């Protein structure tokens, strides 16, 4: 009798194990990352080559005097010399430093405001439309006000970054919380999450995928706002960031330097997106099974 039940037991165990094995999704091996990367990089390189070709033709045809439309070769050598004599490196590093500090402050402030608005529907109805409206306001509009408040200081620059980036981050967090499946919230309630534990263990992690979009947009706004601020707040004691290099180029009618600075601003913006945000996003989505190619065969 005893052996019979244990036999039955182990049969039941086998059945369960067999079901688990058959039904578990098979995660298909990913292609190597560089194959994906190359797949998306070569068309971009081709497009850049086409743009340079058009530029060269315009230069040869002298559509504009050469001080206004330098050749690609002259621009390249201005770029190379600004890189090799260290001005580009110093400007990039100063601007990146400011952007990092300003963006970090924006994240802290944006998350705090976002949580407050997500938690209180009255606050959200009151401030939500204003914050969305602020998102559409070009942050360069804040520069004069920031200079009046803070003179030509780094605080003025940070103020402009905050005003540019915080609304996107707040709205990103709100969009993230709006997309949370109601069932996740009910489970949190059943498990006894409330107040801060609800925010910490349910709301924030559940909102993360949507929030990442807001962070990315916040970064783009922070970077743009910084450039607008640097371009206008030129002062000897502030040091020379990328925006200020741009201003020097304008003052000295040095078009190759202007183009070199624009390229750097562009490259840094894209590099941060690709090297910082894209990997984080990929990691978060993959951990939740949202991008891995899954088949149940």
């Amino acid at each position, binding site marked *: 009798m005893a052996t019979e039940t244990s036999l039955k037991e182990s049969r*039941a*165990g086998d*059945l*369960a*194990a067999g*079901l*688990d094995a*058959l*039904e*578990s*999704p098979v*995660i298909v091996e990913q292609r190597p990352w560089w194959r994906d990367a190359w797949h998306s990089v070569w068309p971009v390189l081709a497009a850049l080559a086409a743009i340079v070709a058009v530029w060269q033709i315009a230069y040869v045809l002298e559509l504009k005097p050469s001080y206004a439309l330098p050749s690609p070769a002259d621009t390249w050598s201005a770029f190379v010399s600004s890189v090799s004599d260290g001005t580009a490196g110093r400007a990039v590093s100063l601007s990146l430093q400011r952007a990092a500090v300003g963006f970090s402050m924006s994240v802290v402030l944006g998350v705090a405001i976002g949580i407050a608005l997500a938690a209180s529907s009255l606050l959200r109805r009151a401030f939500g439309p204003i914050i969305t409206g602020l998102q559409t306001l070009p942050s360069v509009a804040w520069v004069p006000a920031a200079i009046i408040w803070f003179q030509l200081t780094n605080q003025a620059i940070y103020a402009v970054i905050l005003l540019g980036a915080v609304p996107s981050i707040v709205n990103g967090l709100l969009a993230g919380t709006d997309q949370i499946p109601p*069932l*996740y919230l*009910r*489970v949190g*309630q*059943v*498990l*006894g*999450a409330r107040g801060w*534990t609800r925010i910490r*263990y*349910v709301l924030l*992690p*559940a909102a*993360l995928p949507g929030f990442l979009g807001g962070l990315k947009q916040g970064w783009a706004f922070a970077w743009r706002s910084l450039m607008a601020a640097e371009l206008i707040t030129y002062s000897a004691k502030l040091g020379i960031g990328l925006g200020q290099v741009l201003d020097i180029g304008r003052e000295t009618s040095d078009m190759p330097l202007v183009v070199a600075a624009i390229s750097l601003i562009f490259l840094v913006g894209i590099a941060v997106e690709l090297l910082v945000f894209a990997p984080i996003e990929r990691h*978060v989505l993959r*951990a*939740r*099974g*949202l991008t*891995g190619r*899954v088949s149940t065969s």
Partner: protein
Amino acid sequence: MTTATAAGGPGTDAPAAVAARLTGVSHHFGETTRPPVLDGIDLTVAPGEFVCLLGASGCGKSTLLSLVAGLDKPTAGTVEVPTGRPALMFQEPALYPWLTAGENVELALRLRGVGRGERKAESVRLLDLVRLEGAHGKRVHELSGGMRQRVALARALAQEGDLLLMDEPFAALDAITRDVLHDELTRIWSDTGRAVLFVTHNVREAVRLGQRVVLLSSRPGRIAREWQIDIPQPRRIEDPDVSALSLEITEHLRNEIARHGH
């Protein structure tokens, strides 16, 4: 109106006299004119008892469980759950995809205040209990439907309450997986001694699992009939006794539904 408060958690004091008691519970959503969703429900679940709540779709079963879980307050009547916040399992596993299977269980432990040191060991023990020994570090999307529902069961068992509420937890699974989970649930129920209030619209499932089957009528939801089931566990869904009683109960359920056809 008392709802789901811990008057002496499990293991303290004398065992509570009931796992849950509903007295004259009525509930309606919005305006009062329509017939209430639930009307005058009196229901007691004894400690360690397995009660199946049976009824047609839309008769108010999920509403009743939300009231017992304390997610909602009844319009009238009282709900008492003396043994602490009950655990509630849904038809969907509703695991958090940003956590591993083990971390999902650990979150339930953390939220009831279990210390960091014990959480890991306890979550491993609970996953063992639902026969998911190797799944602690697995992500939710790496698990099959049946495995996810077992993780959800482990998470429910991680809650301190002595009452387990289950809202059609196996309805989305295929028949063989459901069979296996019936066996597991019966085993775990008799091992842990928890009271279970199990909602289903599947008569055979109710007879397979319950010590008592409560049939709910529709619009308004009232208790239409009850059956005490003395067939010894473990039962099989294809046992003749189970089939015979299922036929009888199905007949009553049909009549209940047919009342609304004219």
